Structure formats: structure tokens, C-alpha cells
């Protein structure tokens, strides 16, 4: 069983030598499907780690384990000083980890501002604290700011998310993750529903987030665009990391080859 006991969240480390977030020898299976096999991966503060792999390679499963949405069967997760066989969502959040899920995980009936602050609500100070009376005005203002920080403008933050386009929803999910992250942002296909211009905005956001000394892990099928921002690259195939190293060592052709298995598993890899 997991043991979350006795560890307190540490401040994000500035030293690039220490990983902001690491998984070690993680395995995960769903019934007969072995989704992850002995996966070890580290994300460093101020760096962008791009994670590539074909559909079903296990990218989303790995991302969910790193943000506490799934528990691994075996292996270890390390976040700063915290080390355990798994993370709860609450623990991951208190350690400063935020995620953009592939399915976005927004509540469609809730307004944009409510989704932005769900779980982090602001309360009106005029009312007794135990009532938890929402301060929607401040939440709206800060939602607009959070969206502006990633250069997104919505007609209104008071509309239910279900009224937004796919691209707008994705923008809300990205803005939310960036708004609350203190250590690492994990983005699972954040540009899937986006056009060219909006994808560029997400890439800018990734860059800005890394510049703020957070670790960024991004899963994407848009390999060329991600290679523009990535410091590190990892390629997954059939639930294993088949290559991991400095982005400078990777080209589009090599990544695609690794994804489909043309290059052997013993291909050169950066042992850091």
C-alpha cells in the first residue's frame, strides 16, 4: 500500500541537478494490458521534457501516474524530498504538480471561472469562513488574468464550459494547470484541438512556464513543434521508454523510427 506519511512538501529546487519530478521503475497494468513496464523518467526544473510515442504506447498512463490520477503497481515516485510508491491527486497538487489531461477533465456545466477555481475556491471574507461563500467576482478577475497570461481572451468567463469550442476548452485547461502549478506542469496533448496560431500560443506558454523554473512534461504528436521547445526527449513504445536524452540528439526521423520500432532498444541513450 502507499505510504504518504511523514513527508512534507519541499520548496521547488533551483538546481537543475535535482529532478523536480521523477518516476523510477514504474510498472502499471490494466487487467491483461501491460501499459507501463519498468519506466524511469525525470523532469527537471526549468526544462521541457517532450514525450513521444504511438497511440497506446502508455504516455497518458505515465502522465496520470506522475500527477497522482493513477497509482502504479510497482515502482517509486520522487518529488523533491518526497518519495513514495504513489501519489494521491491531493498530494501531487500540494507538491505543486498540475496536469492538462488528454480529456481535459473540465466540468461542462460549470462556468469557466468555476472550472478554473474548482478545488481552489476563493471565499468572500464578509461571510463566516465555514460557509465557504464563493467570491465569484475575484475568481472571474483572476480567471481573466490567468487566460491573458497565456494570451487567450474569451468573450466571457461566466459561460458554461460546454458552450466553448474545443480549442477554447483546451486553453482553459492549460491556463488552469499553469495557474496552479508550483513545481511541474504535465500536458497530455495540449494542442490536439488547436489550430496553428493557438498551438503556437501553447508552445509560448510551455516556454514561459519553463522559464519560470517549473518542469514541463508535454505529450504531443506535433513532433516538429515540440522539438522547438524541448530540452529533453523521451520516446515510448509498448509501455517502455525506448530512448531518453537531450533534445539535441533527436531528429524527427529518429523519433518516428523509435516510435514505430525501427531503431533497436539499445540505441544510444543519455544516462543522466
Amino acid at each position: 500500500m502507499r505510504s504518504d506519511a511523514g513527508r512534507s512538501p519541499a520548496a521547488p529546487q533551483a538546481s537543475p541537478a535535482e529532478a523536480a519530478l521523477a518516476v523510477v521503475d514504474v510498472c502499471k497494468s490494466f487487467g491483461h494490458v501491460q501499459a507501463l513496464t519498468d519506466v524511469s523518467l525525470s523532469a527537471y526544473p526549468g526544462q521541457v521534457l517532450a514525450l513521444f510515442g504511438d497511440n497506446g504506447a502508455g504516455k497518458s498512463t505515465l502522465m496520470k501516474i506522475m500527477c497522482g490520477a493513477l497509482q502504479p503497481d510497482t515502482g517509486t515516485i520522487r518529488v523533491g524530498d518526497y518519495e513514495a510508491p504513489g501519489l494521491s491527486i491531493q498530494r501531487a497538487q500540494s507538491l505543486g504538480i498540475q496536469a492538462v489531461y488528454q480529456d481535459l477533465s473540465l466540468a461542462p456545466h460549470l462556468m469557466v471561472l468555476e472550472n478554473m477555481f474548482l478545488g481552489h475556491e476563493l471565499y468572500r471574507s464578509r461571510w463566516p469562513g465555514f460557509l465557504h461563500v464563493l467570491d465569484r467576482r475575484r475568481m472571474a478577475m483572476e480567471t481573466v488574468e490567468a487566460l491573458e497570461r497565456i494570451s487567450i481572451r474569451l468573450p466571457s468567463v461566466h459561460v458554461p464550459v460546454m458552450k466553448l469550442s474545443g480549442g477554447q476548452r483546451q486553453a482553459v485547461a492549460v491556463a488552469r494547470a499553469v495557474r496552479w502549478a508550483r513545481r511541474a506542469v504535465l500536458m497530455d496533448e495540449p494542442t490536439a484541438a488547436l489550430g496553428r496560431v493557438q498551438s503556437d500560443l501553447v508552445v509560448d506558454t510551455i516556454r514561459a512556464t519553463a522559464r519560470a523554473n517549473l518542469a514541463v512534461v508535454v505529450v504531443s504528436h506535433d513532433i516538429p513543434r515540440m522539438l522547438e521547445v524541448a530540452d529533453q526527449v523521451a520516446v515510448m513504445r509498448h509501455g517502455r521508454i525506448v530512448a531518453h536524452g537531450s533534445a539535441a540528439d533527436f531528429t524527427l526521423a529518429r523519433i518516428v523510427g523509435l516510435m514505430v520500432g525501427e531503431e533497436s532498444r539499445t540505441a544510444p541513450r543519455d544516462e543522466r
Partner: protein
Amino acid sequence: MIRRSAFWVALIDLVLLAVFAAMNPVLLSIQGARTIALDSVEVLLLAIGSTLLLGAGKFDISIGANLGLSSVVATSVMQHVGGVTTIAQYGVSHQVGTYHHLALVIPIGVAACLVSGLLMGTANGLLVVRLRVNSLIATLGMLSVAEGITFVLSGGVNLAAPTELQSGFGLLSIAGIPAPVMVAAAAVVLLWFVVAKTSFGMRTLAMGSEPEAAVRAGIDVGRHQLVLFVIAGGLAGVAGLIDISRFAFTNAAAHLTDPLAAIAAAVIGGTALSGGIISSFGTVFGVLLTTILEVGLVLMGVSSYYQLVVIGVVLIVVVSIYETRRRRAEAGA
């Protein structure tokens, strides 16, 4: 803050009221209004719990059995402490003996009623949250359990509660407003406040809208759902107390279909069956719809069983309208 659906249901209420009043003007008298309001109280309390649960994508169809059990638990306890028994002759209950120690009996009875309701709500919540039983099935099972216990406790007899509960609460009016109506009105205001203003309400809607989104926002969804079931159970306990306070006898069997009326009222009022949307005042107007139908039909001399037929038809029509609108809205998005 009033949703459009609530407005439409209120309009239907007014039309129905006008139609029935045209046939029997007594409906528009103060007495008519009091009757409709009082007869709405118990279903309204159940509907408030149902509204919250529906908003979170859950059901509790045992709240009627909970009402009955709570009233029987409370009355049994009061009879025991007060030295009273009830016998039934030819299907009519008679109180044997008179209640002693009323100053003790009544507070104990009130507490027993509320605790019974809360405990059953807790049991439902634990079944759904811990054992992950579908809420419809879990509460269907609990309905049966509660009904059985009710029968064992009462022996199938409608038990006699102290008449002091009637004079002190059930039949009491303050400034012309019946005390039970005040309780229900307070519960409605509380429902509206919680849903519209607090993070509890927002989180309730979030987990009904997309449970995974609520989990991933770091919310303890299980604990929250448990609290919702406890609230619904507690409100059923309050309704049970009002039941014995109004009639001075339990009538558990009469309330088994109340949850259907309560859920129907909430849905007619615009609360989404699939979660994510709550219409607090819609629930009030939905309950009034069912009561106006009942009272109106009775005044017309028509069997109130036709009320069930009419409510069923209204429910089906309304839900089909909502579904069509929802599908159109989603196709347009």
C-alpha cells in the same frame, strides 16, 4: 437567479391553479393556500434532498421509507418512554394509555426521528461511496430494509404520537403561516444559498457534471457524496417528524412512493436527471405542481390516484422537452 425552467413550471402551476379555482373558488382562499402549502411540505423536504443528490448525479429512492421508519422509530421510542401503546381494531388505531413525562418524551422523540433519518442517510452514503454500489440499487435495497424494520417495529399498526406535537408544532401557525411550512421554506432558502453561493454547491454540481473532473481537481468526492446522502436522510427525518406532528399517528406505508414524486418534482423543475444542473426554485414549483393536482382533483371529487397518472404524464412530457432542448443545444455548440 431563477432558471427559465423554474419560471415555466411556475407558470404551469398558475394555470393549473386557475383552472381548478374556476371550478372550485375555495382553492384561492387563504385556507386553500394553506392546504396546498402544508400538503407540499413533506414531499418538498424529500425533493430538496433529491435535488442535491440529482445535481451530483445520484439518487436516493429510500427517502420515503426513511420518512416512514423515522416516524415509527420516534413514535415507538416515545410510546416506550411515555408508557403508551397503540392497538388497532378493524384497521383503525387507538392509543391506549396517556403519555407521561412529556417534557422528556418529546425531545427524545424529536431526536430519535432526526437521528434515524441521518443514520439511514449515512448507511446509503456508505453503501454508495465505500462499496461503490450504484445509488439506485443501494437505496432500493435500503428501501426494502427500512420498510421491513418499520413493519417489525410497528406491527403494521399506525402508532399514536403525543397530540402535544400537533398543538406545539404540526398544527401551529405563527402570523398565519403554519410552522411546518416555515421549516420547509427555510430548507428551500438554504438549498438555494448552498447551490448558488457556496463551494459546496459548486462542487456538488461539478461531480454531477463530470465526476472525473471533480476528482482531478483534488476534491474528496466520496466524502462529499456521503454528506449529500446524510443531508437527504436528515431531511427525510425532518419530514417524518412533521408527519407525526401533523397527524398524531404514523402512516409509513403512505410515503413509499413519495421519493418518486420528489424526484419527479425536481426534474420537472429543471434539475438535470444526469447531474450538473440544479434548479432550487424549480423544485419548489415542481412540488407545488404535484400538490395542486392532488388538492384540485380531490376538490373536484376525482380520486387522487388520477394525480399519479397526471404527474406521470407531465414528467414524461417535460423530460422529453428538456432532452430535446439539451440535444439541440449540444448539437449547436
